């Protein structure tokens, strides 16, 4: 293939990268200077040497590890579940013929358009009636399968799996689920990786719903636990160095996941050669 990118492409991407990465970098800069330096002007632009001190203060102030564990459990289960069920449903809508398929799909997309600003009140009622407030399940359940995921997988799979492959598997006598497993899953790998990553990140950074539904309970996610760092001692201004150090600590697991998924995305594509 002669699709070798030139200087211009690298230049454009570098510019984009700088813009994308700056806030995260700056967050690290603030998290690595002293409390006093963090609010002085002009603001610091290069990292200081106090990150580990600030991190130690974070561990001192909040129950970081238990919150981390909760967040990993909640985001992990949500992401796995969204990927599994969305791929199944997306595959069904994209490739299987059944009565009501089109109407069903229109319905799925329509639910995306429902504004969520008012949903917290009925959701809290509902979860309280189910006796779920204060549990992991309360945060996971809204993320078991999403309209976004179903729609995404449907659109991806509609062209990514040639119908001949499915036919061939069926002729070989494979059951429906086996066909799904051997034909759809390999083709869906890159999209599954992306959907899993997006979902994990979204659940990871979700704040308002966990705050409301976990109120007063011992189960706290990273985001609700980190919120406590913003409390300004003695009514003054927040300790920004502490806050940003906490933010960075909570972002590290996401970055690790990034690296892991990134490889998967690429390798998935290489295997995307299933599609003749």
């Amino acid at each position, binding site marked *: 293939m002669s699709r070798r990118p030139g200087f211009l492409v690298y230049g454009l991407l570098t510019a984009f990268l700088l813009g994308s990465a700056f806030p995260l970098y700056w967050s690290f800069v603030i998290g690595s200077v002293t409390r006093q330096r963090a609010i002085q002007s002009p603001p610091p632009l290069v990292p200081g040497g106090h990150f580990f001190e600030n991190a130690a203060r974070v561990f001192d102030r909040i129950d970081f590890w238990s919150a981390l564990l909760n967040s990993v459990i909640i985001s992990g289960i949500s992401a796995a579940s969204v990927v599994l069920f969305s791929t199944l449903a997306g595959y069904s809508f994209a490739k299987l013929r059944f009565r009501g398929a089109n109407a069903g799909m229109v319905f799925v997309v329509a639910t995306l358009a429902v504004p969520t600003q008012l949903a917290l009140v009925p959701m809290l009622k509902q979860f309280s009636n189910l006796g779920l407030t*204060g549990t992991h399940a309360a945060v996971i359940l809204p993320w078991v399968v999403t309209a976004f995921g179903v729609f995404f997988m449907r659109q991806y799979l509609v062209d990514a799996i040639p119908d001949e492959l499915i036919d061939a598997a069926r002729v070989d006598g494979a059951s429906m689920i086996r066909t799904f497993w051997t034909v759809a899953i390999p083709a869906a790998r890159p999209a599954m990786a992306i959907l899993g990553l997006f979902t994990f990140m979204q659940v990871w950074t979700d704040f308002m719903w966990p705050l409301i539904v976990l109120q007063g309970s011992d189960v706290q996610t990273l985001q609700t636990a980190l919120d406590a760092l913003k409390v300004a001692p003695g009514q003054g201004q927040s300790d920004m160095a502490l806050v940003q150090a906490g933010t960075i600590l909570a972002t590290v697991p996401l970055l690790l996941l990034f690296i892991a998924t990134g490889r998967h995305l690429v390798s998935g594509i290489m295997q995307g050669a299933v599609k003749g």
Partner: protein
Amino acid sequence: MSKISKSWRRTPRTALAACAVASLVAGLTACGGGGDGDDEQAKLGKDDTLTITTFSEFGYGDLIEEWNADPERPFKVKQTVVAEWDTWKQSLTTGLQSGEGLTDIVAIEGDMMPALVAEGASEQFVDLTDKELDSRWMESKYLEGQTADGKQIGYPTDAGPEAFCYRADLFEKAGLPSDRESVKALFKDWDTYFATGEKFVAKVPETKWYDSSGSIAQAMLNQVEFPFQTKDQKIDVDNPELRAVYDSVAKYAPTLSTQVEQWKEDWQAGFTNNGFATMPCPGWMFANIKDSAPDVKGWDIVDAFPGGGGNWGGSYLAVPTQSQHQEEAKEFANYLTNAESQVAASKVAGNFPANLEAQSVLAEENATDPYFNNAPTSQILANRAEAVPAGVPFKGDKYSDILGLFQQAIRRVDEGTDPEKSWATFTEGVEGMS
């Protein structure tokens, strides 16, 4: 909460689904939040936990730790702290609207109180009335936590009696008196205050007289007896007192005001780049100034406030009826707001207690602040608290909505809209509210 969570794991799936369907049906018929009377009261044992949510810093951490360490105490307490009022307000509102999920005690910012003591909302809270406590707090704060028919919704925690903070160094530069005693005369009333401002900006043109039009408008508004609504909750924004506040602020906006919005970046910058020389200063603002301008020398506090006194801020503790431990919650709210607790909390949180006995204890300690040129802060605040008129301003059920529109009107003038036009938009907006 943890008890519920255990039982759910044992619930079979089918039962869960059935419950969901049932709650769908039941939920719709009982739409409109709690108060369905299913909140059975349960007595707390020594190892049971009472829950409380506060926001920002109330200074209760150590008190609760001590309480929990004391084997004599009848129950344990767990506090959740939400960093920002805006966040907690959303959470609290959701809890009140759905009738579920709130802790046994909730902290409430004073601005929300007028809406909560109104008819309908007040039913969501336990009556905390206790004759013995009638004279525990500043009357003005105590009354704001009370419904029209005398039901006590909240116990006041802190108050925000306002003094004025000023830059002594810039005053000197403008040839004005600068020591705490002699500047008092400049803050005698609003006319003197504005007139002094005009002299000031003539001498020091690169610095404005006050921090924002909004804070001055709020300060003047707090001295109007019926700013937006009459005693019987009728909306009346065409009254001369309100118009006078608006006209003064609009008139001086181009010359004396920074014309920036409070709490925004530009306002924040004003602390360090000599943006302004004076600002209304409740006790909790002191720490904010110190943190915003640690290197600026010259900030001082005057024991005076134009037109008398005023209050900015202060919170309450309340017990929602959805709590299953109302008795214990009331008892603990009482404990947290007693003089001893409030003195301790004030030292941690740096706020000014609404508890009168705590105020006098603090005043006797006569603390001074080196940052503010050794100003006797506790004494000044105690004096300012005495100057706060009780029951003024009258805050009707729509106070918060109209105040928002009023501040927007001021903001428009700052941004260059003609004051008459902006006022017309304001009255139109109020009319459309109904």
